[in-house]
């Protein structure tokens, strides 16, 4: 149970350790609040990859933007001004609590954050807690969980905060017991005196908070001193999860917040006009209240079961939406027409032209959109899973007519996101309903609504042209046309704020595309361009790996086809044409460990692919049985991953397995059919996300040893290489050229009513 007033009731008001104001965070026992302002180090990564020697024969390609400066660098820069404004506290029982201004949705970032704190503070991991910060508007852009940027953006700040806290403990012990600071050490959550006396941090915390402490230099550990960082570590929240004690938004007890559901329009972005049977619905068992809001008609009841029955019984007249009448084929035609033309003519040399289509895909996190909202005349309190809670707070304040100071937004750990919770649709809707009803609201989207009206990855169409002669690739062109991705959750503004416009003065989409998607091979003249036409507007949000899964997945399939044209083995060809030795290292790892080239039965094949992004690299080798071409089974996968500086190899492996499963699902069977302005799919029996029977029986993930100081990103890294490996294995096993994904995309169900 969470008591919503916990935060204001707790806390002996003690002075804070730093000297900066602390508007949105209530002070408690001992607090460090760091406002260091180190110099910006924007260009430190310049030429990191492009400096490596290209393969001897291939025609080197000019470095693409992500090699020099990628999206994560930009997000990091946007966090820079507030990066050290972390809140860390030490309780009298020695518990260390770091309030993480990021969102845990399964990536394992709270565990990684706890490891960083434990490492730098010299406390046992079991004594570290990582609650998620409420929305803290003073952090500006530094409370955004996306772009695989969490570890990249918090690695140094959390270590600085923890090292600073440890130093404060030493200073407190030094002053309290009159011991020279330089003779004190720390271990297992305590300061150790030269005579062996042990002073637990918990016994020093009140003193540290009150005393005028000597100023000591704060120094983080060098990587050679790490005892915990880089060591396999289990999730800190695993026990709660396996015992059913983990609390998600709807598991919280907020007094008076009653179950609420919304009847939604029959087409995307439609809106309610009038309710035809309100009296009848109000008389149904358990029904408490009804309210019309912008997105539909809300019903509150004693139980969710009763709310569901009542909302299904509602009769409502609706206004049209944005894509009424539009179906998948229409969307595909509009995308195909929107692809920017190639610049290199075909016919002068050998060439491959190919077109790919990727179906729309729901994020479909297992926890649907949920939120609790308590909107009063003078204040509002919100609980929800929010990856950009500051924008949610600002937006909700504006919507319900309150000042931002009057709105509190609690970030609740959630059941998956995959990009969905970048937006705050559930929280905003719950706030509107709470205001309309004048009651606290506990909102649950049904699965059907979440899949049909929730945000998705829109369809994309790809045109690819590769030209080659003798043993060289002369050019590689890739034109993407995608359903418009909605960046209005603040991520776009963060990027513009950090100066992205200066980079090319492009829209968010082209900027993000340019800063994430790169061809890792020396393919001569490489151009990759995206266009998102304005004539298909539906509910979208970046989906794990954004444009890369499709763009790079398709590219890896073409890489195999170029290799075949040049009479080369797919692995040897990649090895030769990859730009860097670091890239070759992960590719070689999977080839060796996965036994590339071994004999396979008829209808079976291996597929190999490579991907780099977020300053990390990965390769995947899959073995597939496609004797039933509609239902191929990947039964073995070998993955290698190089993030430069792994924090928790166990968590990193989990992310790679997870990304691989996403790739298998979306390449094999998971997609949405739009028909007359709404997806037909309404549940997992129709949107075929992978099940156990689609998952490999043998998966091995090899984490490459540290080779840099700074960690790269990994949350989305696993999808594109696995998508490529799937496509290549399928092509080789079936002797086909797969062009449309998912490959098995039949409507094999009776759709639910609208």
């Amino acid at each position: 149970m969470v008591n919503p007033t916990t935060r204001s009731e707790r806390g002996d008001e003690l002075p804070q350790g730093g000297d900066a104001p602390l508007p949105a965070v209530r002070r408690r026992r001992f607090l460090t609040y760091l406002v260091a302002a180190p110099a910006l180090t924007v260009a430190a990564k310049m030429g990191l990859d492009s400096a490596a020697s290209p393969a001897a024969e291939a025609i080197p390609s000019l470095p693409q933007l992500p090699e020099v400066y990628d999206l994560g660098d930009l997000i990091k820069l946007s966090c820079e001004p507030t990066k050290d404004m972390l809140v860390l506290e030490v309780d009298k029982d020695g518990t260390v609590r770091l309030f993480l201004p990021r969102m845990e949705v399964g990536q394992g970032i709270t565990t990684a954050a706890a490891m960083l704190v434990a490492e730098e503070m010299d406390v046992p991991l079991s004594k570290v807690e990582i609650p998620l910060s409420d929305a803290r508007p003073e952090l500006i852009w530094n409370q955004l969980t996306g772009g695989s940027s969490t570890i990249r953006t918090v690695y140094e700040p959390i270590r600085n905060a923890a090292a600073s806290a440890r130093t404060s403990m030493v200073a407190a012990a030094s002053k309290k017991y009159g011991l020279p600071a330089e003779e004190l050490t720390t271990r297992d959550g305590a300061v150790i005196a030269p005579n062996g006396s042990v002073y637990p941090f918990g016994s020093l915390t009140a003193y540290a908070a009150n005393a005028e402490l000597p100023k000591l230099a704060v120094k983080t550990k060098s990587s050679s001193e790490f005892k915990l960082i880089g060591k396999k570590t289990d999730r800190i929240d695993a026990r709660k999860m396996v015992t059913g004690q983990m609390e998600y938004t709807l598991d919280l007890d907020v007094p008076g917040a009653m179950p609420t559901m919304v009847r939604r329009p029959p087409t995307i972005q439609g809106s309610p006009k009038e309710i035809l049977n309100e009296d009848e619905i109000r008389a149904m068992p358990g029904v408490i209240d009804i309210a019309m809001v912008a997105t539909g008609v809300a019903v509150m009841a004693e139980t969710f079961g009763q709310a569901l029955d009542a909302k299904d019984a509602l009769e409502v007249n609706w206004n049209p939406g944005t894509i009424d009448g539009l179906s998948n084929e229409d969307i595909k035609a509009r995308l195909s027409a929107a692809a920017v033309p190639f610049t290199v003519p075909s016919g002068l040399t050998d060439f491959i032209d190919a077109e790919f289509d990727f179906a729309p895909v729901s994020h479909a996190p297992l926890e649907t959109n949920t939120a609790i909202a308590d909107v009063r005349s003078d204040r509002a309190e919100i609980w929800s899973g929010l990856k950009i809670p500051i924008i949610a707070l600002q937006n909700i304040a504006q919507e319900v007519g309150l000042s931002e100071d009057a709105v509190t937004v609690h970030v609740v750990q959630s059941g998956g996101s995959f990009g969905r919770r970048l937006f705050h649709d559930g929280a905003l809707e719950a706030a509107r309903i709470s205001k309309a009803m004048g009651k606290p609201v506990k909102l649950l989207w049904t699965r059907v609504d979440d899949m049909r009206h929730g945000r998705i990855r829109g369809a994309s169409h790809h045109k690819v042209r590769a030209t080659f002669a003798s043993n060289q690739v002369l050019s590689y062109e890739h034109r993407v046309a995608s359903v418009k991705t909605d960046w209005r959750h603040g991520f776009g503004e963060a990027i513009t704020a950090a100066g992205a416009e200066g980079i090319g003065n492009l829209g968010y989409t082209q900027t993000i595309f340019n800063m994430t998607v790169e061809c890792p091979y020396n393919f001569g003249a490489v151009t990759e361009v995206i266009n998102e036409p304005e004539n298909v507007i539906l509910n979208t949000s970046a989906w794990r790996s954004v444009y890369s899964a499709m763009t790079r997945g398709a590219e890896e399939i073409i890489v195999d086809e170029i290799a075949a044209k040049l009479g080369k083995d797919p692995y040897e060809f990649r090895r030769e044409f990859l730009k860097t030795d670091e890239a070759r290292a992960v590719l070689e790892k999977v080839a060796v460990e996965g036994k590339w080239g071994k004999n396979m039965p008829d209808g079976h094949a291996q597929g190999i692919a490579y991907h780099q992004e977020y300053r990390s690299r990965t390769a995947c080798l899959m073995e597939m049985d496609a004797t039933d071409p509609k239902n191929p089974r990947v039964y073995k996968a070998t993955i290698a991953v190089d993030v430069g500086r792994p924090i928790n190899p166990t968590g990193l492996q989990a992310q790679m397995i997870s990304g691989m499963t996403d790739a298998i699902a979306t390449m094999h069977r998971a997609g949405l059919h739009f028909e007359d302005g709404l997806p037909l799919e309404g549940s997992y029996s129709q949107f075929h996300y992978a099940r156990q029977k689609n998952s490999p029986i043998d998966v091995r993930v090899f984490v490459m040893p540290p080779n840099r100081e700074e960690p790269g990103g990994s949350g989305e890294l696993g999808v594109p290489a696995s998508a490529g490996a799937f496509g290549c294995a399928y092509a080789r096993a079936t002797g086909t050229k797969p062009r449309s994904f998912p490959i098995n995309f039949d409507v094999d169900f009776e759709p639910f009513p609208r």
Partner: protein
Amino acid sequence: MPNYTFTVNGKSVTVDAPADLAMLWVLRDKLGVKGPKYGCGIDVCKACTSHLDGDAFNPCQTPVSECDGREVTTIEGLANGDELHPVQEAWLEEDVAQCGYCQPGQIMAAVALLKKTKNPTDEDIDAIENVCRCGTYFRIREAIKKAAAAMR
């Protein structure tokens, strides 16, 4: 409204509810037992998997009237105090959970499988239909095998 009496995790409870109200909402909204999760409401995601008289069942599609006089066990009732069930232990050893939302259902499904099939084959494990949207399937498979070994 009629009264129904049954046990939840060993404790007898009586609830006043419409006969057709799904057990998921009886457990969650009336009894405050929140381990079983809503994921679909139509028995396809299996996130709410629990046990009825020891067999796996999905409370989202089981009316409360069907549970009258019977024994309901949810994820909260699986451990013996602080002593976890071997399947829960295996889940910790393999560090299975990511977002964790489906895992109570996955664990209850695995316990039900192992009760009937001491040495499950890969095909037996493939037959588990519970959706894990984080795609932890490989670790689930490994954990089931590990738990099966531990329970032999």
